């Protein structure tokens, strides 16, 4: 039997599903680590919403240039064939549906694909959204990667989000430590499990009416 995935394992699993030649935006935090598992011969082009296509890996040492950063404000490198553009052009590229894929972290994802990842909903929280809402709805597909349970054990794949939403009906796939879920037309299908999880145990945990597509996979 396989093991549940650690964070690197989830990143590796996401990377394996990124199509050859795709244009991709990796959200800050956990999704950024996906870049490390993309083979160069896959020809994947990374977009960073602060105005660049053709972003390379994190910069180190003498490579560090404070004018060349990613959306997480970490210094990065430039690949041959890169292009720079201003913020309105960069978000037009996202909003216009030109990116094939966006990978984001989440507090919660609902069965209908709603995403909550920007605001804890706590009354004293200072709201700060950044590009989260643009990313959520901008790409042809939005993948989420997260651990299936929050620190207190409650599932983050839910019937209906209790956190404030980032986007409505925008998530099409959710990669977690214990399973991969496909979301379409209000239904949620389990396509793969890792470790001891079974579709039944996932149904019990989430309370969702999960379809079993593990055999197809």
């Amino acid at each position, binding site marked *: 039997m396989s093991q549940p995935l650690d964070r690197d394992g989830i990143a590796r699993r996401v990377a394996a599903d990124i199509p050859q030649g795709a244009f991709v935006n990796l959200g800050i935090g956990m999704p950024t680590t996906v870049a490390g598992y993309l083979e160069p011969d896959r020809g994947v082009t990374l977009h960073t919403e602060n105005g660049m296509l053709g972003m390379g890996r994190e910069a180190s040492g003498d490579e560090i240039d404070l004018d060349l950063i990613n959306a997480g404000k970490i210094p990065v490198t430039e690949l041959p064939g890169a292009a720079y553009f201003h913020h309105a052009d960069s978000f037009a590229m996202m909003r216009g549906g030109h990116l094939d894929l966006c990978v984001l972290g989440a507090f919660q994802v609902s069965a209908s694909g709603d995403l909550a990842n920007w605001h804890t909903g706590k009354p004293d929280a200072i709201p700060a959204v950044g590009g989260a*809402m643009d990313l959520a*709805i901008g790409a042809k597909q939005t993948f989420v990667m997260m651990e299936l349970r929050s620190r207190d054990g409650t599932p983050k794949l839910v019937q209906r989000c209790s956190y404030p*939403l980032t986007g409505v009906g925008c998530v099409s796939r959710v990669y977690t430590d214990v399973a991969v879920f496909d979301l379409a037309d209000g239904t949620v299908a389990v396509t793969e499990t890792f470790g001891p999880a079974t579709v039944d145990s996932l149904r019990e945990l989430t309370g969702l009416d999960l379809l079993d597509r593990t055999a197809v996979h």
Partner: protein
Amino acid sequence: MLITEDLREAVAGIPDGATVMIGGFGTAGQPVELIDALIDQGASELTVISNNAGNGDVGLAQLIALGRVRRMVCSFPRQKDSWHFDERYRAGRIELEVVPQGNLAERIRAGGAGIGAFYTPTGYGTLLAEGKETRTIDGRDYVLEYPLTADVALIKARRADSVGNLVYRKTARNFGPIMAAAAATTIAQVADVVEAGGIDPEAVVTPGIYIDRVVRIAEPAAAGELEVGQ
């Protein structure tokens, strides 16, 4: 158009109550010297439109700490080093309008482009669209957003020519070009100034028509400490 090396001259005349756009995404493209000059200049009761709400104790963070900013319009105020903004916000001493980053950019672009309003899908169905007009067009849901303009924009570019054409540097370009077009008076700090014709006309990013004052800062301060967060 004014070309100067005198920061005081560059920011002269900004009145109390002005709306000021400030370029930069975090510290990349942040016009640090111009913000410091604005601090010295003294204008207060400002509305500031900028992606973030200041980092550490310098620049925009200091302007906020000094109580000179009445209202912030930004996408990501909270960063781990935005303590001055955080403190004033929690004390109810600064107003905040949070705008999704792409809507912020598009509203600024609309301000410069003479667009009266536009329908954007970003934010639909969220807290940030509450109370806003919505419309379904061709089966997709949109929120109506209005343009942002400013009295003054402070931006940073790599190079200007003598008619104010600008080129930028890597991801420090970010909000510069759209803010330049959306402000009545745009003040650009640049590392060098060349003669007209010294920038390839095919490679100009901001045409000089958008630029009112250029201040040459041969050796700009190093950008502040890098902070993670959007």
